[in-house]
């Protein structure tokens, strides 16, 4: 087997392959929970790959909603600290948009003064991505250049061709998996590769047809024209838009326990006023509208300046969760044309 070629995995071989992988690693995959697809530890059985990308992004396996940064134990006035080592995981079925989010976060948490817990999890996680051949309703990855096909950033990439999956390695770890589990794979037919291209082109058209078609450059320009005060009036401050976004990464830190305890870090949201409120009570972004504006500026101006990538990957999740009927992307009607 060589590193660059493509392989074919028959449908019925997928579960046996995962079973083998699960012997040494925790396998995380979309499974059905009360009828809904959600990323969770796979414990055998059916996978929920036909559903749209789960609402809770697998980014939480890199930036957990809550994690212990370290534990402190006090002994006669001095402290000793302990940290948990990252766990070895394989994430199966990560979609191109979420993969793109990972690249953006690499540019923030992986760059200059890398965030150690993130870097640790990044290193110990194997990513098996899955191209989107039947995109969801609110998806606009194509506008953001993040899908429906993945480009790099994965260890293995799968494309559902109906009878089975086209499998392409993207890293030495991916090649290693292909080698170690050879018997499940066969050499792909050149026709398979063409079939993949065809399906992705179709999916791309589908997205343009029904999803919001947005031009990020125009959004950037349009931000200042939006009536943010009005948008802020409808916002119910649920924080959902940032808590669900795979790119949003802000966090807060808190201690729990005296004299021994844990320093925790938890996901935060800049939609809340306490996020930026200062000791004096003064707040640089006192109104909801200003906070919403900051949210967009960060995604379309500041993050691109920092990472060269947009801070939105077009997964559409923020619109799905918005409680206030803030029609999040129609704010930019002009930009859509």
């Amino acid at each position, binding site marked *: 087997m060589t590193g660059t070629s493509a392989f074919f995995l028959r449908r019925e071989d997928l579960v046996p392959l995962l079973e083998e992988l699960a012997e040494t690693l925790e396998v995380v995959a979309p499974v059905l929970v009360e009828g809904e697809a959600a990323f969770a530890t796979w414990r055998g059985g059916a996978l929920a790959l036909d559903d749209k990308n789960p609402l809770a992004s697998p980014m939480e396996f890199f930036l957990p909603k809550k994690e212990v940064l370290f534990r402190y134990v006090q002994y006669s006035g001095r402290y000793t600290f302990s940290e948990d080592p990252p766990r070895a995981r394989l994430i199966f079925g990560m979609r191109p948009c979420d993969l793109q989010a990972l690249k953006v976060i690499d540019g923030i948490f992986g760059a200059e003064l890398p965030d150690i817990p993130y870097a640790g999890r990044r290193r110990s996680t194997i990513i098996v991505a899955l191209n989107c051949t039947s995109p969801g309703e609110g998806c606009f990855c194509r506008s953001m250049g993040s899908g429906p096909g993945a480009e790099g950033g994965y260890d293995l990439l799968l494309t559902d061709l109906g009878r089975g999956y086209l499998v392409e390695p993207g890293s030495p770890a991916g090649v290693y998996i292909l080698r170690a589990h050879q018997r499940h794979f066969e050499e792909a037919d050149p026709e398979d590769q063409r079939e993949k291209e065809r399906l992705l082109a179709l999916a791309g058209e589908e997205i343009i047809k029904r999803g919001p078609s947005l031009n990020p450059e125009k959004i950037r320009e349009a931000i200042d024209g939006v009536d943010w005060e009005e948008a802020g009036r409808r916002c119910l401050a649920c924080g959902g838009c940032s808590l669900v976004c795979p790119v949003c990464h802000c966090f807060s830190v808190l*201690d729990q326990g005296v*004299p021994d305890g844990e320093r925790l870090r938890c996901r935060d949201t800049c939609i809340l006023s306490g996020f930026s409120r*200062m000791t004096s009570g003064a707040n640089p972004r006192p109104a909801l509208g200003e906070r919403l504006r900051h949210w967009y500026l960060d995604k379309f101006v500041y993050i691109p300046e920092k990472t060269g990538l947009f801070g939105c990957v077009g997964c559409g999740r923020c619109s799905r969760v918005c409680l206030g009927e803030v029609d999040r992307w129609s704010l930019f009607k002009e930009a859509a044309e």
Partner: protein
Amino acid sequence: MKMDRSKKEADANGGTKIGRAAGAKPESYLPIQAEVVDIDVESSNTYLLSLRPMDEEDELVAVNYSPGQFLMVSVFGLGECPISIASSPTREPLQICVREAGKITQGIMAARVGDVLGIRGPFGNGFPVGSMRGKNVLIAGGGSGFATLRSLINYIADDRRDFRDVTVVYGARTSQDLYFTSEYGSWQAAKIEVGITVDMMDASWKGNVGLVTSLLADLDPVPGTAALCGPPMMIRAVARDLLGRGFIEPEIYISLERHMKCGVGKCEHCTMGRYHVCTNGPIFSYDVVGDLI
């Protein structure tokens, strides 16, 4: 030895990049432990704490910083918050000046000599002390923002010949709220002009009453480079005044405060437009942030 090294570090760090002390791993969220070795009461709600890193390998933290940088200080069980370094790297010990604001600051102030606090850092860019050399320096502080300026003043005082005219103006609410009163004499001795004012008159106060800007009118500092820290209102007024005197925007440095959680540009609490105050600041020149404050 130590002093030379710290001077180089400070000059190199200041105004350019994120500070990084040899012993500390700034990217780790694990603090190092520092013992409180002395506590001075600056005012009824403000203490000056002297700290000494407990592990030998962390000792450099106590000298490898530049004026204007800050630490993330932990009280385990209560949390961590940003506190400016109040001492100068030219003098040990490392000092912080803490004013009661809430849970964590109260926790820091409850520490007694011998107790252990956690520290991470130093963080932030610090004042561009390298480029301040050879210039006239005006230092203007208001309220509790004076702590970070004291670091700069002592740094300059210890290397006085390298700087031209140095003027300090400082205002607080009442005479009881003035910090570092015992040091003004030593600054004056080092040929630093010092003007002090308070907002509210009281029986024990014989000095100026009024705004910091009124001191500027009296002292009439020669244009050069300026370092400002204090409440936004005061900063705006002083900056405007200085511009009127012929100071130029890129030479007016302002130390800013924002809500901070990580200190390393990740948590996004301290964002101010495209800047992270924790890594791009907290010192910004007026031409960069003038319209943001």
